[in-house]
């Protein structure tokens, strides 16, 4: 009997401890000034994609994440913290990026995240750093030529949980069946194994897939405008303003266009000059 009571006590204490700890975390995060803390530690922790070619992709050879957003984040960090500023990267996906930001695991999100009014209720966005648009990827020779062809009962569209393209496609092809997978590599695998007729997301991501998989192509052009922004927690106005200032500097110095050319210059079907700044 005594053992039982003791165990119960331990369990209750543990539970209370968890509640207290979780309570503490969120309270202090709201009052913290992330920019000031990062200036002290000389490091910014960015949440980046690691499964998206051209934007952020894990290179299995040296375990480094590489892509346009990675280079941009490094450049922003240098502008914001000075020459010794270090950019740290934590891998996120469309589903985990919001909770990770809210919990304070990352300082900012730079992970192909479109600025939308719904998201602006939860986080603050910087100015757009890339202007994408939603498109569809299909197997070569597919009868589907554009998004309108997808609007039929027999069609299945693949998307990724947490991306806003799955919300958008419901408006453009309401009759199609929508299947949401956990990340882009899985969605592409599903497309290849014939689980769906088309994969929908932003054109930049799709061109990256098409470059790697010659049997697939982006068709029909873009049907929305998807400006990508750096997301930070509410109340982190200093950090957001610093990002905006740094972004302007990078654009003016021509570094932005250089990065654009480095990552998108050789992508077939994508005219990087259209998004130059």
């Amino acid at each position, binding site marked *: 009997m005594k053992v039982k009571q003791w165990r119960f006590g331990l369990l209750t204490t543990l539970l209370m401890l968890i509640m207290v700890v979780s309570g503490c975390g969120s309270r202090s995060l709201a009052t913290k000034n992330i920019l000031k803390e990062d200036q002290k530690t000389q490091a910014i922790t960015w949440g980046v994609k690691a499964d998206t070619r051209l934007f952020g992709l894990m290179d299995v050879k040296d375990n480094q994440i590489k892509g346009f957003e990675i280079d941009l984040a490094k450049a922003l960090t240098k502008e914001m913290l000075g020459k010794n500023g270090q950019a740290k990267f934590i891998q996120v996906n469309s589903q985990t990026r919001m909770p990770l930001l809210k919990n304070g695991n990352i300082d900012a999100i730079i992970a192909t995240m479109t600025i939308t009014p719904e*998201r602006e209720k939860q986080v603050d966005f910087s100015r757009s750093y890339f202007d994408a648009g939603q498109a569809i990827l299909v197997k070569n020779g597919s009868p589907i030529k554009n998004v309108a062809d997808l609007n039929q009962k027999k069609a299945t569209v693949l998307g990724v949980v947490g991306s806003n393209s799955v919300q958008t496609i419901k408006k453009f092809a309401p009759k199609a069946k929508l*299947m949401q997978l*956990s990340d882009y590599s*899985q969605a592409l695998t*599903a497309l290849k194994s014939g689980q769906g007729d088309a994969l929908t997301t932003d054109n930049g991501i799709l061109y990256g897939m098409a470059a790697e998989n010659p049997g697939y192509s982006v068709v029909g052009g873009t049907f929305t405008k998807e400006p990508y922004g750096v997301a930070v927690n509410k109340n982190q106005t200093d950090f957001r303003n610093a990002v905006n200032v740094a972004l302007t500097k990078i654009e003016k110095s021509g570094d932005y266009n250089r990065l654009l050319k480095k990552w998108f210059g050789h992508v077939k079907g994508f005219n990087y000059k259209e998004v130059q700044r």
Partner: protein
Amino acid sequence: MINIFQNYGSQLWQGFWQTIICSIISLFFALIIGSGFAILETVPNKWTHLIARMYIELFRNIPLLVITMFFYVVIPMYFVKISGFAAGTIGLTIYSSAFIAETVRSGIQSVDVGQIEGARANGLTFWQTMVHIVLPQAFRYVLPPLGNQFINLVKNSSVLAFVAGFDLMYQGNVIASDSLQSMNAYLCVGLLYLVITLPLSYYMRYLERRTLKGGA
């Protein structure tokens, strides 16, 4: 939490049913296949024993997700198209059947050898002994661990989320990212899983009590 049920009621409802349907189908077939392999394993024949052991050890020791992805990705690429729901259900059935086979085998082997010898001495064939003497006792012995397997099966059905099987976990992920209220969304999903597993758990306990009363 209430607003999640209000705003995403239909999605949660669909996920709830998909999970139940997947669980029932898997449970039914896993029990049959599992018992089949358990019997094969105890048959005094070297080859059937070997086949049963190979099946059990293979699928018991591969992660459920790998089996499921095999049916979702590899099979459609080379053979027939399988939906995410079907791939998940097949994977879950195979995976669970290996565990159920091991559980039932332990039950069969815990039946006293004297009873089997007695039954055979009285002229019953091997199969008659199995059906009338061994299996009824075996299932009674293994009811508690079998209940565990059933509960695990329901929870493991969350593998459907990875292959867009529209189950409870899939809907949970979608709702969490759509509403941006991860905690509430997963709390609702957890609650709905409890709605399935708790009655199952109590029913297994009830069965245990009833069969114990029946003598032993």
